[in-house]
Structure formats: C-alpha cells, structure tokens
C-alpha cells in the first residue's frame, strides 16, 4: 500500500509545512494552533478539509489593504512579533489594540539559574523512537 487510505496523511504533511513556515512567528503559530483545534472539533471526520483550510489561517497582507482585517500579526525588522486588533493605518503608522509582543529567542553561551527562579524543568528528547520502539528506528534519507 503506497496509496493513502485517508486524508490524515495530507494533514500531517500540511501541519509540518506550516510549522516550518511559521516557526519564528509565535503569533501565527498560536492562531494556527487554536484554529486547528476548532476545525478538528467541528469536522473530525474530514481531515482533508482541515488540511485544505489550515494553510489559509495566516495570510500575508499589504499595508495598503488592512481596512477589512481584524487581527494581525506583524513581524518587525528586529524579528520581534506584535499581534493585536487592527485600529488604523494612518500617516505611516499602524495602530493596534489588545496587543501581545513576542521576542525572538536569545542565544546564550551559558547561564546560571537560581533554584528559586525555577518553576519546572523538562527534558527535551530528540530520539524518542529509538527509546520506545527501537525496531522501528529506521534511518531516513532527507
């Protein structure tokens, strides 16, 4: 069987594509995640339609075409991201309300964290199949 038995295959691939595309835009990722959850609750039996719809959750728009838009994510020149509701675009200034500011991650060579500042520590694993299903840990050609 190399024919797909359902559209879940397409959905997986679409999700991997949008994650890659918007990995540096937390506002877009948040919108995609909440819309994905909503779509799945609405039509869990139609993964193909979810797959076709999810790519349109984030749409790039021209600055001259903002009037009809409600919520925006703006990537700034310094890679910070601001999201918020559109108010106006006048005299070369974009005005938003109810905003959130996302800063890009900062690279640190090393750091020391006082114990009292720590809420939770998680291990980030990168080879989970080798740990759980070693017989299926196949090498994959990129």
């Amino acid at each position: 069987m190399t024919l797909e038995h359902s559209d879940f295959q397409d959905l997986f691939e679409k999700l991997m594509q949008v994650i890659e595309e918007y990995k540096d835009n937390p506002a877009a990722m948040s919108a995609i995640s909440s819309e994905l959850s909503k779509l799945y609750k609405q039509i869990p039996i139609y993964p193909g339609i979810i797959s076709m719809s999810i790519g349109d959750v984030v749409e790039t728009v021209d600055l001259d075409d903002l009037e009809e838009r409600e919520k925006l994510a703006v990537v700034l020149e310094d890679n910070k991201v601001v999201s918020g509701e559109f108010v106006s675009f006048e005299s070369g200034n974009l005005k938003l309300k109810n905003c959130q500011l996302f800063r890009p991650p900062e690279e640190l060579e090393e750091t020391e964290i006082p114990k009292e500042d720590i809420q939770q520590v998680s291990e980030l694993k990168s080879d989970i199949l080798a740990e759980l299903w070693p017989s299926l840990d196949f090498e994959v050609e990129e």
Partner: protein
Amino acid sequence: MKKMEISEGDVLRVEGSLVIQVSKGEVTISGGLHGEGEKVEIPKAKSLPLEALTDAVIEYKKEEGGEIEHLPERTIPPEWDSLVEEIIEKKPKTIIVMGQVDTGKTFFTTYVANSLLRHEMKSAVVDTDIGQSDVGPPGTIGMGIVDKPISLMTDVQTQDSYFVGSMSPSGHMLEFMVGMKKVAERGLEKSDLVIVDTPGWVFGGPGRALQLYGAELLEPDLVVALQRENELEHLLKSMPSQVRRISVSEKVRERSKSERSFLRQETLSKYFDGSKELNLDLEKVRLERCYLGTGEEINPDDLGVEGVLHAEEILEGLVIVTESKLSEEDIQALKNEYGKIIEIKKGSEKHVLVSLIDENNDLLSVGLINEINYEEKKLSVITPIQNGGLVSAIQIGSMKIKPNGEEIGTVRPGSF
C-alpha cells in the same frame, strides 16, 4: 534412534530439534494422528504435546536443543475437546478464533484442525499474522488446507495468499479486509469449514474496528474467544454470532517486542534465502497500488526543469522521477502548472516489499525491488520465483526490507 515405550493416555512434551518415529500404536502430536511407521520432525525451540492414544512404542533422535519428557497430566484443556465435539455435531462453516497477542491462537487452530481431521473433517486455515506468517509469504494473509496431520501451522502447504504489504494491519485495513475475505472464501470452496486465526489487535478504535468489521464480513457461525480474563468482552458484546469463551493455556508464553522483531527477521530471511534477481518489463507488467504508472506519460524535457527522468500526468497532478531532489522553486513552478506533485527520487524504490501477481490475479510470491530503470522501463526484483513470464503485475507494499530479512524502513503512503 532411542526407543521409548509409552502407555495409553501418557502425555509427553517433545521439543525440537527432534525426530520421532512411531514404531507401534497410535499417538497424536498437536492433536494430529500418527500411526505405525510415521515420522515427525519437530523444529528447534518448538515444544509440542504428544499423547498416546494406545500403548505405543516411539523411536526418537535428539538434535540441537532436543528434549522429550513425561508430563503428569494432559496440557490440552478439556474444553478444547468439547469444542471439537460441538463442531463435529453442528458443522459450522466459518469459525473465527479471536484473542490478544500471545494467547496461543495458532496452536489452538492447529489442534482443532488436526482433531477434526481425525473425524474426517477437512479444515481450511487462514493465517492473518502478516508479520510472522506461518502460512504463505511474509506480509500476506495465507490459507492452507489441513488434509494431513500437522505438528505446526508452518507444515500446512499454502493454497492461496493475499498481499497486505506490511508487517501489521495498521494503515492497511482495506487490503487486510479484502485479503481475509478472499482467502477465507477460497478456503471454504476446498474444505468442510474454514478457521480464521485473527490478529491480536483487539484494543483501541482501529483494533475494535478490525475485529468487528472483520467478523461482520466473514459472517462466522462460531466465534472462539481465547482470553486470559475478560479482555475480549468489549468485542463479544457486539457479536451476533455464537461465541465460545476458552481460557488461555498457562503454557502460552508472552513474547517481547525484540523477540517478535527477531522472529520477523528470521521468517523474512528464510523466505528470501536463495532468491535471485528477476528482470521484468514494465511495458508488459503493470504496477498496482501506487500512483506511478497510472498516468499519461509526458516528455520530461517539456517540463522546463532539469533532472527529471520520467514524468506522467495524473488526475491529481504530476508524478516525476528525479535524479536528485528538485529545488523548492522548481517544485513550486510545477505545482503552479500541474497541481499536486509526487516526486520519486530514483533509487528510493530499492528494497521495497512487493508482490508478484499472475494473470489470474493470484499471488506468485513476494519480492524486494532492486531497481527500476525508468529509461528502459525495466524493474528488477529479488524473489524466490524465477519465471518472469508468469508475472502480470507488481503490487507495491509499504516496507523496506533487505534480503537478509532486516527491516530498514517504511514507504510513506502516497509517495510512490
């Protein structure tokens, strides 16, 4: 050979490697009757019950790991024999044997088929354990007729098999259901009844669906549920057929993931041992279960991108075979023109598990693709069969396996 006298009713455990010859009297091994002069070979590491039906003399020769010992009592639960009597009396046509993994379904099926044969009832057995097929090649659902006593299910000669293309029904439900129904029907044509040994996947949505729709499709007259406690009750509540609950023998041993993986490799390696390369002409042999070969061929030079060896337009878009992965820009340009793009990198077909099908749509064997030469339209496959003239079609599977039986990868659905 050493000689041993046994009395009627004696029970022995015989473990391979061992050769046994009955010199006098009658015994059963796995329920199969063996009389004077008959010889039985028990393979290494297989442990089976031998029961004396009369006073008997057996001769035996132990080889590596071989053992033979008296047991204080029968190991076959009496309810198995009651069930056999019920089958003889009611003559069901289709029996499903259901149970989780490692509940002894295959031995139970062997015992029942052998016992029925002693009453002149010929059973077809359907083996749905596609990862470690006892009947038929690996990756297939197999069917054989028990028309002579067997010690193990592997002793049954394969009469028919259907290619599922993987080592598990997961993601292959359609092939699995079609295969199970087809081989069970064919089995019934050649026997008095068919016994279907079903997969051990009984939990979760897909497991429940597999069991329940499978049972609905087969319309069994009897469902035999082998369970340790009540792990099948969730399925049995929805079964309209007559159900017989049988407890799992304490002798049944659970296997680990790594042991299963090792056994799969051993089965595959044994199957491909001695296989050779067979060259097939893709102008004469069709490809099945894939996008490749289903479209209208177009000249790769007309696509406007470099490095395309083969191209065909399909309803969904375009299938292309490339020397190396195309750039994002080239793919986007092709998408704009054709829609969906299925890009197959040349060489990615190596080791893909396939089946070889004859003109009657019957399975000849399974094989492993060595290479597809797209320019010359030739496909070479490693397979035990050597007469390429019989092959009408190649069905593409979902696993990548080396001829030594090592599983090295999977094929992404829709990528071929």
